[in-house]
């Protein structure tokens, strides 16, 4: 397959691995921010072919995983109203709320539908003028422009039956949060290439300089990830701390200017709770005027939910790179992809789901 096979070539991978082995001289801890990269690493077995000095820890870059339980509960409450069609990406439907998930709500009669884009939800709103169509808007900087565009389009058309339940979050604040924590052991970051496509590199250059931490813009294919690791190891060995763009075929330093402008027009920054991690200042987004009227949480008055997490789930520690999934006592026992206690076991980008799918019995040696 053109544009993909080139980045999966076993011989080129072997060459990159050789360079990594020749470069690394001491143990180092590298975090890949993005859950898509976590899955690529485990799926391709990259963690098993890297030299033992390099430990990859998995970051909080899984929007499904960090969406706070309150918002899942809000979505279930909204979906349970007969007038509502609740739409979202497939993974969100299986994320556990305080009691049940959106799929169980659907089997009880709620109209919950999977869409591939918020614009599909917009089309649904146009076609169902007597229903209220709500899109559960999760995602990082890559997906935010799409929902911003949907809100702008809804405003332009004067739609009054389209709403967004907004759970958007941003990457730089959580990296700073993790780097400031006393428990931090991450020495270098692989940045999520697709997020950088939108944001550009400015914020990361500031963070790299301030915290003296190497950062490498990294893609998602095996060779991309190996190149990212090589970039991170090279900086660590040379004592450098800058942003190295190893995904230049996609990412430009300035990012996507028009996407950023659209997001700024539709959204404003707020403090946001991250599931399993806690409140992170200025890390989330909410609709600003004149788009506030599309805010589903306001319109359906579901702001106070009394939500409660599972007491055994350690997904917060997993999302911060402090624990590996198999260190959780519930992993593979009470908690499986079919009976998930935490969102990290659900999502196609969640670290627990990745370990369960690809490594569980090999790693944990007990299941």
């Amino acid at each position: 397959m053109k544009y993909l096979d080139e980045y999966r070539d076993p011989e080129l991978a072997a060459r990159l691995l050789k360079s990594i082995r020749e470069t690394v001289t001491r143990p180092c801890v590298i975090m890949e921010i993005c859950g898509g990269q976590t899955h690529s690493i485990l799926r391709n077995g990259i963690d098993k072919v890297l030299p033992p000095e390099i430990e990859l820890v998995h970051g909080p870059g899984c929007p499904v995983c960090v969406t706070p339980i309150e918002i899942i509960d809000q979505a279930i409450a909204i979906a349970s109203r007969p007038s509502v069609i609740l739409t979202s990406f497939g993974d969100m439907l299986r994320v556990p709320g305080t009691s049940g998930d959106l799929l169980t709500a659907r089997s009880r009669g709620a109209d919950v539908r999977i869409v591939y884009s918020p614009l599909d939800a917009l089309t649904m709103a146009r076609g169902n003028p007597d229903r209220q169509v709500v899109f559960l808007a999760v995602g990082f900087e890559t997906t935010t422009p799409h929902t911003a565009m949907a809100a702008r389009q809804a405003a332009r058309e004067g739609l009054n039956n389209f709403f967004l339940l907004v759970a958007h979050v941003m990457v730089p604040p959580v990296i700073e949060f993790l780097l400031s924590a006393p428990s931090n052991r991450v020495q270098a970051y692989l940045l999520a290439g697709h997020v950088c496509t939108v944001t550009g590199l400015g914020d990361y250059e500031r963070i790299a300089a301030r915290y003296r931490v190497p950062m490498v813009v990294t893609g998602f294919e095996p060779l991309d990830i190996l190149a990212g690791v090589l970039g991170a190891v090279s900086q660590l060995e040379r004592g450098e701390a800058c942003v190295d763009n190893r995904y230049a075929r996609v990412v430009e330093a300035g990012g996507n200017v028009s996407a950023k402008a659209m997001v700024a027009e539709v959204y404003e920054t707020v403090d946001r709770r991250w599931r399993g991690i806690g409140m992170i200042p200025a890390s989330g987004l909410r609709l600003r005027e004149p788009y506030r009227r599309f805010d589903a949480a306001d319109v359906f008055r579901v702001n106070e939910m009394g939500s409660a997490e599972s007491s055994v789930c350690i997904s917060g520690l997993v999302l911060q790179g402090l624990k590996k999934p198999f260190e959780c006592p519930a992993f593979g026992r009470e908690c499986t992809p079919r009976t998930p206690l935490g969102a990290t076991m659900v999502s196609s980008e969640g670290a627990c789901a990745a370990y369960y799918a690809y490594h569980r019995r090999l790693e944990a040696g007990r299941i």
Partner: protein
Amino acid sequence: MSSERARIQLAHGSGGGMSRDLIAEVFVKAFDNAPLNRQDDSAVLELYGRRFAFTTDSYVVDPIFFPGGDIGDLAVNGTINDLSTTGGTPIALSAGFIIEEGFLLDDLRRVVDSMKRAAAEAGVQIVTGDTKVVERGKGDKLFVNTSGLALIDHDHQISCANLKTGDSVIITGSLADHGVAILAAREDLPLQTPVPSDTAPLNGLVREILAAGGEAVHAMRDPTRGGVAAALNEMARSSRVGIAIEEALLPIKPPVSGACEILGLDPLYLANEGKMLVFVGRERAEQVLEAARGHRYGREAAIIGEVVEDPKNLVSIGTRLGARRILDMPVGLQLPRIC
């Protein structure tokens, strides 16, 4: 499903882990008998000193017409293929129709014509049937059920519980064509190269495979819902062995892998409707492969791995980078109503 308030979800019909548990906890528990409990694609019955295969399958595919086929030939081929996993010769089929009020008679004729053609190709007759009509909105256009009977005219043991360490694993052609065809038709995916469904009757191909492999053919399975990954996991468990396959050996058409990349789907978990997994003793693997490739439905057949000893009954896949990881049973739902 422990709670008394639990309800059926779409994923219970996906062919993955939830389907398996539903079947075990509800149906097998209730009906409990030897042919059923083996949970092969067809029940094998001994009557008057002869062995027969008997199976049934219902089809709810949406859309009912799709590139490469429709609900009619799918329903005939699917049951023929379930019978063929025993190596038996199909004798006759039944067909049941649940039709929604308002369904176009011309569309029904089109489906029935396509069933007639498929049955003729497979060399069987549809000898009995049933028709029900439900009120508009109480069904979705057309559901079809087919049952089938086959005579097992060989003495070999062919069963999902019969895998032997060292067996070669053969797939008779490319993966995931049906799953991608349905998805593309449903979502209006503008694929550069259209992917037709692979729906086809495999009794002829199976005959060639058995002629070449004889009693070295230990098991066959058509990997429909849940794809090759689900089929391999079920067989490893039934036979108490492990299975090791190699990513680099999997035959996948470029437009299929392209569509899977875009949608984040794994071809190993997508349905096939014209492919057979064959487990054959290593000593006869090349002959079986050659025989399969000589048949029109087996041109792209490939050896993709082998059966290994493993007390945990794992299915594993070697990646292109040389690492090995688990290939798990699919969880929940990939795509609803693909067959």
